[in-house]
């Protein structure tokens, strides 16, 4: 397996994963979307709400706010080894919010009982309070998996495509393919059409160039064992940590399978 990182920032990453099968690539993608646990608000205790939003709408908005998660400290409640699923500091976290209008309540106004866990973005508007309106609540956050609800989904727009291979033979440099290419990555020189190496990954494998070529000189294919991965994080983990955690999840599942097979 080889990994070639193209772009890596706090919230997003793009990399080429090569010398692995499609099943493995898809395993990593699915783990990023569904199997990395994150913290999200699960219960809301409302003391007062005179805002324009219903209590349920408010709870939904709160639950969708990504919280910066420490995978070491918290665990999903059903798997909690400390309390066995009844609720304890190892599997739940309380956040409080108290505000009076006129004001816009932002996610940064949530006061967490654990200073390490904060809203990933402090400027998410929750509700606009007019004069005299009031909002007092306590929110309980749990760890959970993306497969159960979007609020626990850490990976956003995780996807991959095969690394494209564009080959040109006996080209008459007519230029039709260059005009047709939606990504405008085909260059036509005297010797014929070609795709510069730095632009090759932009190819979307649409094969419009193949169709428009009268003499079948251009061929688009792909490498079955190399993938261009793009992924984003919602902020609960950095992009780097999310990929690592997803890999750990896949590894843990594989080890679980081995131990089951050993017992047979």
């Amino acid at each position, binding site marked *: 397996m080889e990994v070639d990182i193209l772009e890596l920032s706090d919230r997003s990453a793009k990399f080429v994963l090569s010398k692995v099968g499609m099943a493995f690539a898809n395993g990593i993608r699915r783990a990023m979307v569904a199997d990395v646990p994150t913290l999200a608000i699960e219960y809301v205790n409302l003391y007062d709400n*005179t805002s*324009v*939003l219903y209590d349920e709408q408010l709870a939904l*908005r709160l639950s*969708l*706010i*990504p919280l910066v998660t420490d995978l070491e400290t918290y665990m999903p409640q059903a798997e909690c080894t400390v309390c066995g699923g009844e609720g304890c500091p190892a599997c739940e976290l309380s956040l409080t919010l108290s505000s009076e209008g006129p004001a816009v309540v932002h*996610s940064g106004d949530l006061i967490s009982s654990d200073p390490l866990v904060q809203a*990933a*973005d402090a*400027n*998410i*508007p*929750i*509700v*606009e309070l*007019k004069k005299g*309106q009031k909002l007092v609540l306590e929110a309980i956050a749990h760890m959970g998996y993306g497969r159960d609800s*979007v609020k626990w*989904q850490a990976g*956003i*727009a995780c996807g991959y495509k095969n690394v494209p291979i564009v080959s040109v033979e006996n080209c008459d440099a007519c230029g039709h393919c260059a005009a047709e290419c939606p990504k405008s990555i085909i260059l036509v020189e005297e010797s014929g059409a070609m795709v510069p190496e730095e632009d090759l990954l932009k190819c979307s494998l649409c094969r419009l160039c193949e169709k428009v070529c009268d003499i079948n000189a251009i061929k688009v294919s792909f490498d079955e064992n190399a993938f261009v991965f793009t992924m*984003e994080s*919602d*902020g609960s983990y950095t992009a780097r940590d999310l990929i690592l955690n997803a890999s750990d999840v896949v590894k843990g599942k594989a080890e679980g399978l081995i131990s089951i097979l050993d017992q047979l």
Partner: protein
Amino acid sequence: MISVRCFSCGKVISNHWDEYKRRVDGGEDKAVVLDDLGITRYCCRRMLLSHVELVDVLSPYQ
């Protein structure tokens, strides 16, 4: 209030609403503002483009 996340992909978009609104009201082109804010996918772009703020309409009726 604008939805916290994009309906389709789940990206948090509501934190860009204030800046988007301010700049579009200031006469800037919507496409340019969205590009500046790093909202590249069309699923996320429609969230901001199609949003209608109703808080001011509803607030007198409490």
